[in-house]
């Protein structure tokens, strides 16, 4: 039981990193990317190959993975983000499959026995769960703060403006294409970093892990917690991980079919969009360095979304 809880916390941490990246793309900038599993895959493979084949330290693979995933994101972003409309989601759907195809072609069985991360002589093995929890969550917190700061800088405001209205954003001097590509690249890079931790924790990578389902799962975390809300997506990661380990946690694996979990993700997306599109935690409020009292937002009831069909 405790074991499963630890596992949930570790995976929630890894997925929270992914969700932070997805949140940058979907939550801040309003672009729908469906290949976070692909960036995750790139990150895992970079760590696996660099650690195993080239004997590099785990810590050095993190920036390499971020750059590799970000670069792939950039390549796909340039043709699709210049255009109006939702070509990005279809292009990324295809990209996710292709990354997995390439990974399979590269090495169908993946990599096993990847050297583990170590710090000052301590090796983070799968057995020391608390230590790994500490490792992952330190990174989650660091990224959380980095992205909170981003969201509330002028860059974050520009991204929000792009999400709300691209034409108005242009008239405010925002280079819409640059911000869209930048946000996509950054989100992809964080997805790559999450991949490193996956490889470091399981010590194995294989292409079968990085399916479309993973991308939808990450999307679910963002939608559930609240698009654009940093705390929300971490909460979302916890809830989704809990759902996916629910059968094992309560010994119900034999009763609950394997697909139930995915069907729940689908339901979450539909139901949240209809009943609570702003997510469980809703909009992220920020104080801009001014005391709280002046900024209290008067309570609004169910608010109607802006009317653009």
């Amino acid at each position, binding site marked *: 039981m405790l074991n499963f809880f630890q596992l949930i916390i570790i995976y929630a941490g890894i997925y929270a990193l992914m969700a932070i990246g997805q949140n940058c793309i*979907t939550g801040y900038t309003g672009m729908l990317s469906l290949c976070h599993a692909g960036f995750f895959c790139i990150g895992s493979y970079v760590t696996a190959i660099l650690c195993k084949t080239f004997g590099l330290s785990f810590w050095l693979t993190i920036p390499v993975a971020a750059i590799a995933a970000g670069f792939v994101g950039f390549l796909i972003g340039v043709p699709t983000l210049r255009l109006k409309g*939702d070509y990005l989601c279809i292009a990324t759907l295809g990209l996710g499959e292709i990354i997995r195809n390439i990974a399979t072609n590269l090495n169908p069985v993946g990599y096993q026995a990847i050297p583990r991360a170590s710090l000052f002589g301590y090796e983070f093995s799968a057995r020391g769960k608390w230590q790994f929890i500490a490792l992952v969550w330190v990174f989650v917190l660091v990224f959380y703060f980095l992205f909170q700061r981003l969201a509330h800088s002028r860059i974050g405001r520009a991204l929000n403006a792009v999400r709300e209205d691209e034409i108005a954003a242009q008239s405010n001097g925002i280079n819409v294409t640059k911000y869209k590509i930048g946000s996509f690249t950054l989100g992809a890079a964080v997805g790559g970093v999450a991949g490193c931790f996956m490889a470091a924790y399981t010590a194995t990578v294989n292409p079968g892990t990085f399916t479309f389902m993973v991308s939808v799962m990450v999307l679910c975390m963002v939608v559930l917690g609240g698009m654009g809300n940093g705390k929300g997506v971490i909460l979302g990661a916890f809830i989704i991980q809990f759902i996916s380990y629910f059968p094992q946690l309560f010994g119900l694996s034999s009763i609950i079919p394997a*697909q139930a979990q995915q069907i729940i993700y689908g339901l979450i997306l539909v139901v949240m969009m209809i009943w609570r599109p702003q997510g469980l935690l809703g909009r992220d409020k920020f104080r801009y360095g001014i005391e709280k009292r002046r900024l209290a937002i008067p309570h609004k009831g169910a608010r109607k979304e802006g009317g653009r069909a």
Partner: protein
Amino acid sequence: MTLPADLCLNEFNPYNGGTPVNTFTVYMQYIINGLTLGSIYALIALGYTMVYGILKFINFAHGDVLMVGAYIGLLTYQALLGDSTSASWMMLAFLIALVVSALLCALLGMFIERVAYKPLRNANRLAPLLSAIGVSFILSNGAAWVFGTQSRRFPYPFANNPISILGVTITPHQILIVIVAVVMMVALTFFVNRTRMGKAMRATSLDQGTSELMGINVNRVISLTFAIGSALAAVGGILASFDFRVYPSMGTMTGLKAFVAAVIGGIGNISGAMLGGVLLGILESVGAPLLHIPNAMKDTIAFAVLIIILLVKPDGILGKNEKEKV
């Protein structure tokens, strides 16, 4: 997604070490195969394009409706056929299965629209897309739950004896696929251009608000669009399952390619979808052997085509340049 041997025609591949044959015949063969594949893409692409034309959103669940259609068709066909081996009954049972599947999928399409998209018509741009992804996930995993994940073969409704014309092999099911696809497309073109409801549909895609003021029941038009698109997808799904077999995730890749076909032709444009489908089918069938692309990477072609189209002519071949009004 790999093609079974009878469509891959490896024995004709000159690089395969088989009997050397004339290159013209080889490429004719690829083109014929591509045409068959393309008419399936075209049928499915119509659903994407019609929905996009009216609601301006990509109906992600379309590919999964196709999968449901294939399952319904397969189950109906098997139930009707029983142990019978009578040739005429096989054909009739197949046609009945086609109709039943199209009708049920039309209902399914309307139901999905009513439940998952209609409440979001005035929400922000992302909401219906996310909801559609949710529906797609529910359908494909629901199917995996009910039918299991193993793939099933759709039996040919008649003896599949290839016919040889000038060294090019054509199988009866290829002819069947093309005939069914052409009949459906002609019927749709007639419906859209010649009937009152078709006119209402075209009007709605141009301007929803004005159409409503002109007394068009926009809700009904949208419902009908989903019904027609889903029925076509069901037919496309059944035709596709001759070659690709039936399995719960069959809709994802086939749907993606059909969408690429719709973009090639110009999304929102009905004749564009047909043209795009056929073009993509031929490109895929001819391109893979021409560029020595291994079978596992074949899907990359459609994707590369999408990127090239987006870079060169994002509005597609027949599409019009539509700028957002300021």
